[in-house]
């Protein structure tokens, strides 16, 4: 159906429900075929791809983790050599941080934020498509490098001089640095889209105090990305310049400074932890609200805690550098700020506990994940308080205690809520329910396996085991605990395998999901499961924080949108009153081609600086085609 048989100013009020649904479906649809798949700008399709890709990277990273555990199970084991081990733990860390944790959180934002704020697509949808392809290219780069025995072997924070030109032979460190560039690009793109979507595309009536907490958390996360990523961009670019064209940013003999790298890296690296954790906070808040059958206690404190965490996150990067020999005043300041971030995190825990206390908890799988999250994350947070103390940190820094700590924070604090979120939103995304009985097994195996695997690492660190050692002697007496840890890792692995099995099987044979299977209050549950390509046939209008609880039977809607182009509503920042109708871009192949051109340029620049010059030509061409004016006038209204 072409647009020509519709009057140019036709509005949705002119059509009946069924005709309108057909009209919108054809207008917003993604065409079949490879070309359609490559040129789609539907945030749901892209978000789904993002999620699936990130979970594939989780699986691959998990395989590397098991390889690490086999190597460390016995003293003087020769399963992996030193060289391979160093590549494996570097790729494990870089993969989990840059290719799994951050992208998967963004992916849920890409999928859910437009639905939760009641709009038809994310802002800048073509940029969204571009960000996915760039992310995919970065991930393939890293894993291809590992497969070719040229994986980075410098640790996920790549300290110079080890990663610098003199000690990092070959292209391994360059591949790491360019992989960072890819993920920076995609993360920044998604962050901009989410900020604009949340600020300008909320459903009419969704004033600031009615925004769902998950959306708030994605907003704060996006601002963290926008402010933290430039630091790592500077760092990875200067590293490549040092290695490729012989600049001296990190050469102490020529006035450079090796500690500059650590400052730049951790100025990004610490907020990174909260970029991963804050979306998990949003997921927990959503799940707790729904399954405690009660509005969240302390909405305002929770939102303020999100902002406080986000701001404090930029003031404590030096606690990763407590043993480099800092001035006393600096140490004291960063100890105080690192301790202080426990306060907003405490507030969040208290609010969830109060909600559960006062509500009527329904023990479904997502809530069980939240319970596992609270138990483990509090341990991780408390060991975080311990490493924030300078004198204490001098004993545990760079040991297995820290390895245990950050796995408690990242798996306990982010992966458990994430898996809860998968169980929670799976029916919306796939249209089928996941298996509740298997889900309980998954929670139990993961919780037990996780704690048995990582808790003993605290002790290993205290009895002297440094991190990143590829082996250890029998005289160190670390063999028993390491073997215990390695065996427990099998339980953890079984839990993950069961989760993947459940997720894949349910996609084909799960129970068909209704619109709102959990009786949840937010807008993404107001449309069908999975949602139609236009998300909402009529844009909902909101009059409270929990629209589906307050108006359980029929939501108010906004009408008058044109139906001959992809149109959505732009609203004001604070009280979300309608301001304009805006057309959302159509499908385009150019973001995909631009991503390929960028990939070619970025990878070739590892080998020759001239690649930056010649490689920008195809990028420029694809961008020009991407932004080529279509000659359709902007709507005035």
């Amino acid at each position, binding site marked *: 159906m072409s647009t020509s048989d519709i009057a140019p100013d036709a509005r949705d009020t002119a059509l009946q429900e069924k005709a309108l649904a057909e009209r919108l479906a054809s207008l917003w649809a993604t065409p079949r075929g490879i070309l359609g798949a490559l040129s789609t700008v539907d945030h749901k399709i892209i978000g789904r791809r993002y999620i699936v890709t990130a979970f594939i990277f989780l699986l691959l990273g998990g395989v590397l983790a098991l390889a690490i555990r086999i190597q460390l199970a016995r003293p003087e084991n020769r399963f992996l050599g030193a060289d391979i081990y160093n590549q494996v733990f570097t790729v494990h860390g870089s993969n989990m941080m840059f290719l799994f944790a951050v992208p998967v959180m963004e992916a849920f934002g890409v999928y859910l934020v437009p639905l939760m704020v009641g709009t038809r697509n994310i802002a800048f949808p073509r940029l969204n498509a571009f960000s996915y392809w760039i992310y995919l290219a970065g991930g393939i780069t890293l894993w291809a490098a590992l497969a070719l025995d040229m994986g980075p072997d410098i640790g996920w924070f790549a300290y110079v001089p080890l990663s610098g030109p003199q000690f990092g032979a070959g292209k391994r460190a360059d591949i790491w640095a360019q992989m960072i560039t890819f993920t920076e690009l995609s993360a920044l793109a998604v962050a901009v889209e989410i900020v604009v979507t949340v600020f300008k595309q909320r459903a009419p009536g969704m004033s600031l105090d009615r925004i769902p907490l998950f959306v708030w958390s994605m907003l704060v996360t996006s601002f963290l990305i926008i402010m933290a990523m430039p630091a790592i961009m500077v760092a990875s670019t200067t590293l490549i310049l040092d290695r490729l064209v012989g600049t001296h940013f990190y050469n102490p003999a020529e006035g450079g400074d090796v500690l500059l790298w650590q400052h730049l890296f951790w100025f990004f690296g610490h907020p990174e932890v909260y970029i991963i954790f804050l979306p998990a906070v949003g997921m927990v808040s959503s799940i707790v609200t729904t399954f405690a059958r009660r509005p969240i206690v302390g909405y305002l404190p929770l939102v303020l805690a999100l902002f406080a965490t986000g701001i404090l996150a930029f003031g404590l990067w030096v606690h990763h550098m407590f043993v480099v*020999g800092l001035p006393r005043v600096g140490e004291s300041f960063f100890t105080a700020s690192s301790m*202080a971030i*426990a*306060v907003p995190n405490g507030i969040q825990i*208290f609010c969830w506990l109060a909600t*559960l206390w006062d509500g009527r908890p329904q023990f479904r799988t997502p809530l069980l994940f939240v319970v596992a999250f609270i138990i483990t994350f509090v341990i991780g947070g408390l060991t975080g*308080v311990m490493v924030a103390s300078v004198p*204490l940190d001098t004993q545990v820094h760079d040991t297995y205690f820290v390895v245990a700590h950050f796995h408690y924070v990242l798996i306990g604090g982010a992966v458990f809520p994430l898996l809860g979120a998968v169980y929670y939103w799976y029916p919306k995304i796939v249209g089928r329910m996941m298996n509740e009985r298997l889900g309980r097994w998954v929670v139990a195996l993961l919780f037990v396996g996780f704690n048995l695997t990582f808790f003993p690492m605290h002790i290993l660190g205290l009895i002297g085991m440094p991190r*990143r050692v590829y082996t250890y002697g029998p005289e160190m*007496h670390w063999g028993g605990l390491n073997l215990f840890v390695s065996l427990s890792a099998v339980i953890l692995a079984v839990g993950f395998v069961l989760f993947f099995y459940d997720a894949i099987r349910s996609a084909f044979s799960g129970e068909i999901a209704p619109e709102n299977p959990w009786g949840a209050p937010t807008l993404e549950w107001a449309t069908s499961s999975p949602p139609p390509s236009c998300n909402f046939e009529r844009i909902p209008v909101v009059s409270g924080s929990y629209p589906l609880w307050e108006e359980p039977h029929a939501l108010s809607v906004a009408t008058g949108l044109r139906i001959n182009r992809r149109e959505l509503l732009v609203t004001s920042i604070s009280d979300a009153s309608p301001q304009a109708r805006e057309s959302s871009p159509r499908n385009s192949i150019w973001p995909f081609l631009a991503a390929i051109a960028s990939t070619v340029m970025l990878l070739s620049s590892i080998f020759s600086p001239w690649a930056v010059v010649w490689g920008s030509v195809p990028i420029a061409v694809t961008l020009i085609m991407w932004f080529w004016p279509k000659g359709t006038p902007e709507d005035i209204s």
Partner: protein
Amino acid sequence: MRSGFKPLLGAVCAFPLSGCIGWQSALSPHGAQSGSLLRLIWLFVVVCAVVWILVIVVLAVALFRRRPIGNEPPLLEPSRESRLNGIIAAATVMTVLVIGTLTLVSFVATRGLDSADENVLTLRMRGFQWWWEITYLDASRPDRIFLSPNEIHVPVGRPVRVRLSADDVIHSFWVPSLAGKKDLIPGRDNAITFTATRPGVYRGQCAEFCGLQHAHMAFLVIAETPQSFEAWRRSQIAEAASPSNDEEKRGQSVFTVKACAACHTVRGTSASGSLGPDLTHVASRRYIASGLLETTRGSLAAWIADPQTLKPGSNMPSVPLSSDELRDVSAYMASLK
């Protein structure tokens, strides 16, 4: 669900009991600094454990307490909400107090770690990929300066100040039984102070990832009485022992003629390379190759014959030697007490 913790608690309790395990452990301190650090660690552990248990108790009650039956999302009562908010505020204030106290305790502990003492013994330590070079300094008597790779001897009770620097990549000095850690950073000078309170052998290990053989970059700290320390110092200042039999003599000539002398020094011979560890008193040290092998004639021979199998990527090349040459040179090495 919490049954998972029982074996772990068992493991915690078992550790202090199991013998010589404490030579590289923050949990068995033998120095002034590590002692106060361990008290700090226990204080934090206890406070954190109490907080965690409180949270878990509240969580358990919140989940399982009895409630009136009903399933509809309840309407909000302002009085109820404000009571809950009040409880959250109170818990937050408690958090601030606990955190503030821990911060102050941490500040005080930091102050206690620096002991300004006149009678301090100063060493210089340089980190290399993947071994340590320790220089015993003596400002008044340059002839008393000597090198002791991978092994530090200190007198008990006397504060030791180690000046740390690195020439290649970042390393980190860490002897958990005596003190915390401090990085060795190219282009910067750091220092760490510790005092051993009990005679013993303590192990330290590089804690900052430094490349292929990061795992095999250890050193020993041997705390002994001032008398035996002085005796050790005198023996180290002396030149290398002369070969006492033919085998050792042949070994010495192999050592000085072959590639060995290009990198290693044996004071008193023509071997004066400075790229690898000083071997003047190699057999007096307990380990070779940075804590990799205990020093015996056999392990010396194995190391010389095939260093790249024992420590892949190490900068020690496999020098082609005949079996006779290998036997002679290992006999000579083993004689360098």
